[in-house]
């Protein structure tokens, strides 16, 4: 029997608590590799990893690529600007063509919700969701869980607040699902226009005012405000957002003393988060990036490692 009984990683929904713990434990042992002088092990030698990115990404794509390379897999990158998409090829056709070259896993980022699910049905290789529309970003949530567990020693019972545009954030969606599975006490915060209908069904609290929401929390997770994507009907603008919802040092003082501050990046300095907070001792933002590599090594290993494929 395999350790990890999944062909794909599409959503946090599909993972059991044991699955999540397995991924986090595995990442812990992989993390050490990145600190070595020779940052490479032969684990995935001969395996092929495709990065198929239909949306711009620096962090996630390079994190996956570094993770794959440190495990000795062959990687190649396709983005929508250099693929046949601009020639009108459909997603399924692209998938079938990649399939014909027999990759082991396709890492897909796409602006359409459900695109990785569609790809997973069409191809026999594994598919990893690297962010789909406004739906999910499971590997980001897993690296966040890993970071919290590393810093706090546990997740169960922790008080965690997620602040920002919850409606359009796939990071928030995956984190809510993961944190609830592991027993955290989750609060979301942000203007009412950015908190979706039915979010309370996940058993979380909604406190719109960020100062109130931060009070007595162990973890403060900020989201990137994507004004470039939104109509000005959703919110008046950056200035108004920064003034009423931006998180400052003063607000952080309301949290528990040892609270950590997280952000999936890229940050709008001075909008959702004040610069002084980003660079404060409680900030674990760069740790998140570092842990991202370890988590993705663990996921790649669990999905395509070994010979049972």
């Amino acid at each position, binding site marked *: 029997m395999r350790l990890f009984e999944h062909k794909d990683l599409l959503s946090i929904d599909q993972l059991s608590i044991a699955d999540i713990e397995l991924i986090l434990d595995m990442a812990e042992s992989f993390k050490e590799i990145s600190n070595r002088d020779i940052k490479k092990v032969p684990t995935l030698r001969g395996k092929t990893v495709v990065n198929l990115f239909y949306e711009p990404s620096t962090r996630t794509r390079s994190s996956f690529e570094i993770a794959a390379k440190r495990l000795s897999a062959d990687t190649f990158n396709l983005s929508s600007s250099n693929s046949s998409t601009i020639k009108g090829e*459909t997603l399924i056709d692209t998938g079938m063509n990649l399939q014909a070259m027999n990759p082991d896993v396709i890492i897909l980022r796409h602006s359409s919700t459900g695109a990785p699910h569609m790809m997973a049905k069409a191809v026999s290789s594994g598919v990893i969701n690297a962010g789909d529309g*406004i739906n999910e970003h499971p590997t980001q949530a897993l690296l966040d869980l890993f970071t919290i567990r590393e810093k706090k020693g546990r997740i169960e019972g922790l008080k965690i607040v997620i602040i920002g545009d919850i409606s359009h954030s796939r990071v928030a969606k995956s984190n809510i699902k993961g944190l609830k599975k592991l027993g955290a006490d989750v609060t979301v915060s942000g203007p009412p226009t950015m908190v979706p209908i*039915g979010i309370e069904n996940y058993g979380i609290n909604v406190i719109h005012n960020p100062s109130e929401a931060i009070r007595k929390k162990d973890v403060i997770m900020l989201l990137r405000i994507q004004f470039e994507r939104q109509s000005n009907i959703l919110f008046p603008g950056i200035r108004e957002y920064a003034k009423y919802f931006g998180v400052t040092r003063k607000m952080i003082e309301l949290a528990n003393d040892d609270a950590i501050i997280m952000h999936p990046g890229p940050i709008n300095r001075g909008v959702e988060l004040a610069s002084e907070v980003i660079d404060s001792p409680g900030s674990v933002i760069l740790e998140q990036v570092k842990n991202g590599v370890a988590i993705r090594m663990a996921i790649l290993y669990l999905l395509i490692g070994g010979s049972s494929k």
Partner: protein
Amino acid sequence: MITWIRSGSIVDTLKGLIRKADILIKDDIISAIGIIPSELKQKNQRVKIIDAEGMLIIPGLIDMHVHLREPGHEYKETILSGSIAAVSGGFTSIACMPNTDPVNDNRAVTEFIIRRGKSAGFAKIYPIACISKKQEGKTLTEFGDIKDAGAVGVSDDGMPVINSELMRRATEYASYHGLTIISHSEDTSLSRGGVMNEGDISTAIGLTGIPSINEEIMVSRDILIAKFTKCPVHIAHVSTAGSVEIIKRGKEAGILVTAETAPHYFTLDHRAVTGYDSNTKMNPPLRTPEDVLAIKNGLADGIIDAIATDHAPHSTLEKDVEFDKAAFGIIGLETALPLTLALVRAGVISLPEAIKKLSLNPARILGIPGGQLEPGLPADLAIINPDYEYILKKEDILSKSKNSPFIGKALKGRNELTMIGGKIVWER
């Protein structure tokens, strides 16, 4: 030529009864309904006997909301293929929406559709023309001329009339010409970018939502327009509990409003979208279980007058893509009957009432013949087996497009024979 349909149970949409009787058809007209003396066969050699023991005989179904895609999108459906799908599903008359390419906003296109329908020779085709030229919502089409050409109604289906003045003038002018005005009620400023109902499911699966108020605001507006102008308005594809409530109040106030819903709105709810099957994507979207219940109650209480399919064929080119990029709409001509019979079995409405909403009521709303079986009327009818159970298979679908969420699902009730003007046009 005499046809004798023997021992069937006849659904009387007018009296709301089912009675076991024979039907005698002379040429194209029903000549008698009752117990026909059996010596008839000896007296006349040229009697065709159809044994309908255990079957239901219903008036030919009438679908007041169909997209036939011709002219312009013949790869999705043609007037011929759509007519065949219709008669196989028990429909003898269908009204086709004008959002073709070119759109049906003038006499030439209306006449083309009628001519193609006649040469196809299956279902009777009744064109619905545009309210506004090019469906741009700016100027009225020539209602008089298109009515003379054979159109029975006007609608900018798919492209709702946002301009309230235009809608007001359209009701007034359509009423003068005796054209039914059909409102696709949607405030597009509220639904832009949305691909499914806005609610707990859209949040859970990460798709952009379409709020129920996008429909209800326009249903309210059009009922207020009908009240003000004292002209009738018909609300297409009602999908929300709020719309049912608003229509109910309109009817109670004596406003000339009628309404239709589609089988998917009383069969499926937004939970069906989980899994991102683009055949669960339509406009209006599948709503909540509470909305589904309200639609059923609206049918039972007579708030919703008609069941129409909103048959919307799309090929794999439009449907086998990312969910948010997929076209809205599903086919419905071949599943409307079993899905409606399920409502009857569930005790929501009686069988005659269900068939009435699929025939007589839409006929009355559009001002076209059909919907009842009486001596002296044309023999447009269907013989159905209400107990036949089957799994819907893609390869059995006759429509050119196969975009149905009911493929692979168990259905009960099937049309066995369709007759138009005394002629068998389709037989299983």
